[in-house]
């Protein structure tokens, strides 16, 4: 598929996620009747969708967007884990699982998940349903590791990456309302992971500075600076599992804020005590800050 077709497809996708269109209803006299004379419609014996919430494929309506997802699990807190899905399988990437039901083919975005209440699921429009045995297969597929494609297109302006970015953008509110928000940073997931060397230079000079500093400062102090970066409203640090954590200043916890990486909003909502920006990433906090250009802005009501 050429770039022009991909862009057209992306524009088509964009129209589909918009909740309201301002297009007036077409008048009856303007409708063309295009069907063959001998058209016959037959339908299978319909199996009503079960009352069971797991396996339901639904469309959620948020203030701005229509969000397709599949309900996969129930948590101990009586929340339901749902994954973002889309019928646009032509945009499937290594982060996705493509699966089929009797009535459609979908991609599931393995990193784009959030939690829903029973009420939200019941209020949503139902699109399809995945039988329990197929849901189990899907869950097994979810447990597998999805390797990063080293040859992937890392241009965030390409239609396939714009699709991915928008898919995460429309679920931002759902992902960020959880006490442990699921953050997705495109610069890390799309660019850095596919080619770390090209994206962040672990310059030899930097390493020398670090070694020099090590000789000058006490071990404890060096450790702090190596594993933490102090910004105006937050601290970036690495935990023992090499996860990159953003900890807002104490006075900002529970305040509404927006965190951006460059121009991209990666968090919007009430600030928890800490946010995992990326799992297992071999970047020092300062390097991560420089690479991601992180900013935190408090939103005043």
């Amino acid at each position, binding site marked *: 598929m050429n770039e022009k077709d991909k862009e*057209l497809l992306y524009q088509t996708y964009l129209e589909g996620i918009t909740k309201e269109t301002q297009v007036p*209803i077409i008048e009856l006299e303007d409708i063309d009747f295009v069907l063959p004379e001998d058209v016959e419609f037959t339908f299978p014996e*319909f199996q009503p*969708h079960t009352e069971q919430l797991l396996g339901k494929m639904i469309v959620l309506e948020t203030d701005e967007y229509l969000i397709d997802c599949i309900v996969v699990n129930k948590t101990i807190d009586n929340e339901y884990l749902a994954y973002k899905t889309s019928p646009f399988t032509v945009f499937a990437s290594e982060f996705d699982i493509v699966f089929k039901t009797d009535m459609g083919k979908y991609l599931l975005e393995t990193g784009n998940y959030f939690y829903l209440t029973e009420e939200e699921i019941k209020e949503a429009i139902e699109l399809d349903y995945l039988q329990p045995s197929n849901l189990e297969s899907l869950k097994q597929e979810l447990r597998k590791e999805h390797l990063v494609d080293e040859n992937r297109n890392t241009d965030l302006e390409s239609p396939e990456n714009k699709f991915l970015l928008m898919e995460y953008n429309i679920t931002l509110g759902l992902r960020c309302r959880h006490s442990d928000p699921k953050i997705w940073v495109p610069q890390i997931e799309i660019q850095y992971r596919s080619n770390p060397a090209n994206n962040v230079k672990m310059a030899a000079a930097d390493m020398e500075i670090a070694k020099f500093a090590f000789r000058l400062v006490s071990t404890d102090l060096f450790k702090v600076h190596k594993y933490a970066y102090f910004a105006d409203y937050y601290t970036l640090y690495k935990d023992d599992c090499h996860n990159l954590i953003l900890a807002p200043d104490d006075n900002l916890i529970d305040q509404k804020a927006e965190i951006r990486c460059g121009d991209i909003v990666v968090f919007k909502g009430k600030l928890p005590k800490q946010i995992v920006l990326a799992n297992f990433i071999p970047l020092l906090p300062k390097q991560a800050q420089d690479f991601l250009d992180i900013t935190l802005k408090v939103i005043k009501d």
Partner: protein
Amino acid sequence: MNKDTSLIQGYKNWYNNSEDGKDILSLEMALWSVLCEPNLLSSNKIVFYQVYALIQMFLHKRPSQHSMLKNLAYKEGYNTEDTHICLIGRLIMKLTPNLKKLEEKKNQLKSEEDFGKYLFKTGEIVTMHCVEEFINDIVSNKIESIMIEQYYGNYNISKYQDLSYIQYEIVTRHQAILLAEIIKEEWKIREINVLCHDLENNCESGSNRLKNESRDNIYKLHERIRTKLKLTLENNNFDENVGRLFIKEFLKKICQNCPPLPTYKEEKGY
């Protein structure tokens, strides 16, 4: 479908002359009646016109998607009539399993108007999904999505599907029509005659074809023609669902136009 008047003329008469049933609520209630009883779509012309009109309204609410589907289908040689058949069929198929939920909503909402609005919104969103799926299917087919599917984590892709679901898949339907064209153009009439015998033989009235062939020969001919059909599918990169839909939907028409031959032997003129 009652064929007393042509469909297009019937539709024109309905919107030009009919006093009732053209307001939005009537159209919505027509859709509701079809969801409760899908056969109404084929047995009641007025209901059919109303549902058709409503689906066109859904389509026009998302002009870019509608136009993308039209352009793509046109460029790839898809028949517009078949695109509409697939859309209507697919929409009803996707909405009907929700009947119970829609009924609950109907009871919960105070007025018929409110339920109509809810049904309109639901119909519009599901129609949009059908359009997106069709666009995706046509594009995937164009770029040989098999390459993608081999690469990414997939499961359940080659699952067996009931024919009634397949009939409204836009690419499968298009390919089944192409298969019919290929068979009409490339196969000999005596071969089509065997294929038709295979089809008709399962009917209660039996077949008028191959009357002069022995039972053993007919068995062998059936075997041979099935192999040929399979090869034709393979040579054109069509999957077996295309073959199944072709047999269900399009072979009958070919057989109606194929004179019954008493034997497979080559005769003058065939």
